[in-house]
């Protein structure tokens, strides 16, 4: 499973990144969590609000920092 965090590297993005790692750990999922900070890459997803959370190529959240529990539900 590939989880991507889209965002220019602000505080919110880092928080979402940590929450995603914790959520995957808790569920025991083998997941690769990647931070995407390049605008060119972010633009490909057509996301206007960062941070955004992408699970296996699908955008599941944008513009908000999901908690660990919320990400667990999405996974």
């Amino acid at each position, binding site marked *: 499973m590939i989880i991507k965090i889209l965002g*220019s590297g*602000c*505080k*919110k993005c880092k928080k979402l990144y940590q929450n995603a790692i914790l959520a995957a750990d808790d569920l025991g999922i083998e997941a690769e969590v990647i931070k995407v900070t390049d*605008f*060119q890459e*972010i*633009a*490909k*997803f*057509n*996301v*206007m*609000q*960062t941070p955004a959370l992408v699970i296996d*190529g699908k*955008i599941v*959240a*944008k*513009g*908000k*920092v999901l908690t660990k529990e919320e990400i667990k539900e999405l996974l």
Partner: protein
Amino acid sequence: MLGNFFIWLNDAFLKMTWLQDLVNDLLIKVFNMDAESYLYNSLSFFIFDVIKIFLLLSVLIYLSSYVQTYFTVERTKKILSKFKGIGANVVGALLGTITPFCSCSSIPIFIGFTKAGLPIGVTFSFLISSPLVDLASVVMLASIFGWKVAIIYVIVGIILAVIGGSLISFFKMEKYVADFLKEKTEVDNEEEILFVSKKEKRKYAVDQVKEIVGRVWFYVLLGVGIGAAIHGYLPAEFIQKILGPDKWYSVFVGVFAGIPMYADIFGTLPIAEALVLKGVGLGTVLAFMMAVTTLSIPSLILLKRVVKNRLLVMFITIVTIGIIIIGYIFNYLIII
């Protein structure tokens, strides 16, 4: 009768005159401070401003974030695509005022609008007004300088955004966006992620308050600290010699001092307040604040990643000239 009620409301909630009295009483009666001393003047300014700014900030961010849940970026984009010509610039500038996006999210918005095919000038009208004029900073301005100044500030801010965006359209700047913005998008993602329930909206607003206050508190304290030092210790004659409204170059000093600063408008307000109390022209101070919010180097570096040099230079030139003109207008209005 109604007028008196409004004044009372304004004094109690906006200017918080009761809080000022309370702080002063506390300093004089409990701590036996001398009302004429420098330390008293600085401390009174510091304590009062810190409490007032954090109270106002929390309430205002809550309210504007709640309003924001009705205007998601996707919806803003849809509304904007319905308008044409200068009307679109005006709507762009107006939507910019009700959507308090932080500067770090303005670049993804720029990308989204451009890829959606919105005219470059409309996007810039939105991007100029968004950090410059928003609900929270306008109410703070009203609290410190009164409603008249706040309303004129909103009007000139919107005019700057409309004219700036129109000029960028006029000079056909759409060629000068980064090349990757001209490519097609792979993922189609028009879907709005909406806030369904009132509860969710309230949670979002509370989160925004925590997030923004958590991000700006240091700048606010720093700004109030500098403001308090100016208020208590810097002699008025000295400041007026450099920055008095009768000095023609004062507006330039204000703008160029503002550009390298990275601060929030909430951090610069207390400095502005202290400077105006010392007799610096209001136009000079507003030009300084506008430069801090729209032309700060960190946000220009981000913008550089999505536009080519020509457009970046044009944006900086238009905004700088606009701010300088606004500064002179305000300084002139005060003298007459």
